[in-house]
């Protein structure tokens, strides 16, 4: 049966990472960049839309220079809150600024096989299996395409991936692997089939679409066309920047925020110009280049700061945020993974980023690990507990219990203790056993997560998808191929 979803809500912790003046300066600099430097939009359709609204369009270079007021007025039309619908309406996710939801990470290319332990290329069955574990896990609120179905043809791969998610989970699906208008149209058909038509889909978007930008200051043409299709049918649509200090963005953090912001808000403005009022979201996973290899780092203090800063920007534009957290650069579920994923998730959560992406991938979002997925869920549980903060009232000050126990007693048998002890966090993967128990087994978090993942895959049966829908998916996919 469909499971409860755990989110962060009614937070009691706060962080001021950027002052209102800082945000104003980043915004002003961003508009300056969009107007004077421009952003690349390599899509005929996108260029037509910009031209029709008076932006300066260079058809040859595909660079668009749009005045600040055009961007600002377009962004004002974006709805501040909406829901991500699920196959099971009880699992709908309100993106209202008062919830933090976690998804699976994406889109990996390899899987650490749960049975053999070997690293191998990802396939469609992995997408299905990961969706099934995500369906079971209370921390996972929605799905990204966690790994690429590389055993299916590129032209329809993204659609098979979506079908596999919906056939194995009742939760919301957000795809980050559709890069063409053709696939986007088919995905809309599939989503509409689930909810009973395109009008129903506007009310219940069981699918949302996330497209990556092409930094610095660019978009991908197919991705733009796909986003425009999604927005046309009311699917929540977002653009994610992954600007990287010293390679695709300036070495300074503020400069990185400006470049990424220019990409994202120009993309969101385009959607609003085409379909005013369409639900959109800001998405980001800024990082720094590794100074030695030039590679994507997937963690580090700068990433954690970006995680907290970006929601200040998306709040300024009054749209939900999908923020990259977790996604460690570590090769195994180890010390580095624990630090990176804890701090990134804490910093993105303390500012109430609406969506966190996501659990389960290692090596900079390339290698799927079920163990890491479940350990990431544990990290989210810790952060969620911390976000509850400390409640101070008559009941929690516990004066009656303190009086009853007095100096030198203990609180074990107090009714007050029994009333409140279940509010205390209980670990699934922290080792708090006596030393000798550990010494006998020499096991720990990884082994327990490994066994739990195997147990879930062996036993969990998601609420099945109507077989006629599965058949309909196949018909739609066949019509694309």
């Amino acid at each position, binding site marked *: 049966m469909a499971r409860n979803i755990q989110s962060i809500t009614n937070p009691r912790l706060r962080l001021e990472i950027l002052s209102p003046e800082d945000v104003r300066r980043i915004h002003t600099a961003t508009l300056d960049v969009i107007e004077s430097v421009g952003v690349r939009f*390599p899509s005929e359709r996108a260029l037509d839309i910009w031209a029709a609204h008076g932006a300066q369009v260079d058809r040859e270079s595909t660079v668009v220079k749009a005045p600040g007021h055009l961007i600002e007025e377009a962004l004002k039309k974006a709805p501040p809150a909406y829901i991500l619908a699920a196959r099971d309406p009880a699992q709908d996710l309100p993106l209202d600024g008062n919830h933090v939801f976690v998804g699976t990470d994406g*889109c990996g*290319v*390899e899987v650490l096989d749960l049975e053999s332990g070997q690293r191998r*290329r990802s396939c469609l069955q992995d997408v299905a299996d990961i969706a099934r574990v995500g369906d079971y896990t209370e921390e996972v609120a929605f799905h990204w395409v966690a790994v*690429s179905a*590389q055993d299916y043809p*590129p032209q329809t*791969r993204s659609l098979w991936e979506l079908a596999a998610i919906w056939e194995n989970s009742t939760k919301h699906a957000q795809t980050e692997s559709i*890069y063409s208008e053709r696939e986007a149209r088919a995905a809309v058909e599939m989503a509409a089939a689930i909810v009973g038509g395109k009008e129903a889909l506007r009310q219940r978007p069981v699918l949302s679409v996330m497209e990556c930008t*092409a930094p610095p200051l*660019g978009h*991908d*043409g197919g991705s733009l066309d796909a986003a425009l299709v999604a927005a046309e049918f009311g699917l929540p649509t977002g653009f994610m920047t992954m600007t990287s200090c*010293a*390679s*695709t963005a300036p*070495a300074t953090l503020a400069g990185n925020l400006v470049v990424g912001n220019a990409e994202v808000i120009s993309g969101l403005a385009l959607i609003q110009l085409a379909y005013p009022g369409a639900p959109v979201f800001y998405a980001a996973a800024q990082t720094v*280049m*590794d*100074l*030695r*290899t*030039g*590679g*994507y780092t997937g963690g580090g203090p700068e990433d954690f700061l970006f995680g907290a800063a970006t929601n200040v920007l998306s709040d300024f534009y009054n749209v939900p945020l999908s923020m990259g957290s977790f996604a460690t650069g570590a090769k195994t579920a180890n010390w580095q993974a624990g630090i990176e994923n804890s701090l990134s998730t804490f910093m993105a959560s303390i500012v109430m980023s609406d969506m966190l992406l996501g659990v389960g991938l290692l090596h*900079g979002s*390339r290698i799927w690990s079920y163990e890491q997925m479940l350990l990431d869920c544990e990290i989210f549980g810790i952060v969620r507990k911390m976000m509850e903060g400390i409640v101070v009232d008559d009941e929690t000050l516990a004066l009656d219990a303190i009086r009853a126990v007095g100096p030198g007693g203990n609180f074990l048998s107090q009714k007050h203790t029994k009333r409140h002890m279940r509010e205390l966090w209980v670990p699934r993967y922290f080792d708090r056993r006596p030393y000798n128990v550990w010494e006998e087994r020499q096991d720990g978090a990884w082994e327990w997560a490994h066994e739990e993942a195997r147990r879930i895959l062996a036993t969990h049966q998601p609420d099945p998808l109507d077989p006629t829908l599965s058949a309909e998916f196949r018909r739609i996919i066949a019509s694309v191929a």
Partner: protein
Amino acid sequence: MSTELFQKMAQSVIDGEVELAEELARQALAQGIDPLAAINEGFVVGVNTVGDQFACGEMFLPDLVLAGEVMKAAVAILEPEMARRGTHREMLGQVVIGTVEGDIHDIGKTLVATMLSASGFQVYDLGVDVPIARFVEKAQEVKANIVGLSALLTTTMVRQKDVIEALEEAGLRPQVKVMVGGAPVTRGWANEIGADGYSEDAIGAVAVARQLVGA
């Protein structure tokens, strides 16, 4: 007198000063210094120093890339005089590089191109979204030793295989070695499609390229 100029040339590379390096190259020409000597005893010394400092962790990738840019700018100024004298630099090999069709991701490919160029390869960068036939034509035209294929998407990665097959059909294999790279590309994939070289980063790519040409 030229010793001092050579030292300044090396330092301009280490400091990443493009304009200064160009000015020093012009000075060398004005003084009638052999341009090949200016390159080998001046600028290359700087490139090697940066390379050594990078290897021991004292300098970083942006230092290497900037050193490569400085070198390129200086050589561009010295080249006409080298041609006039009928001399040329000994290159390690000819490399044709690009991001495959359907893929617009630029930076990884450009980084590898810059590093190969700075390491003494003649690099022909075809840019992004490069059609299969274009790789084959260019490889034929410049008698390439190496073709480098970049892809960032799992959906475009398959094009790397197509290019290898096209090179085979054109009869260019095995004299043309193929290197592949890009975030989703793994050693396993490289082996499966019959690529000769793979590296996850640009520094590794230089080592692989040197090995492929026996340098």
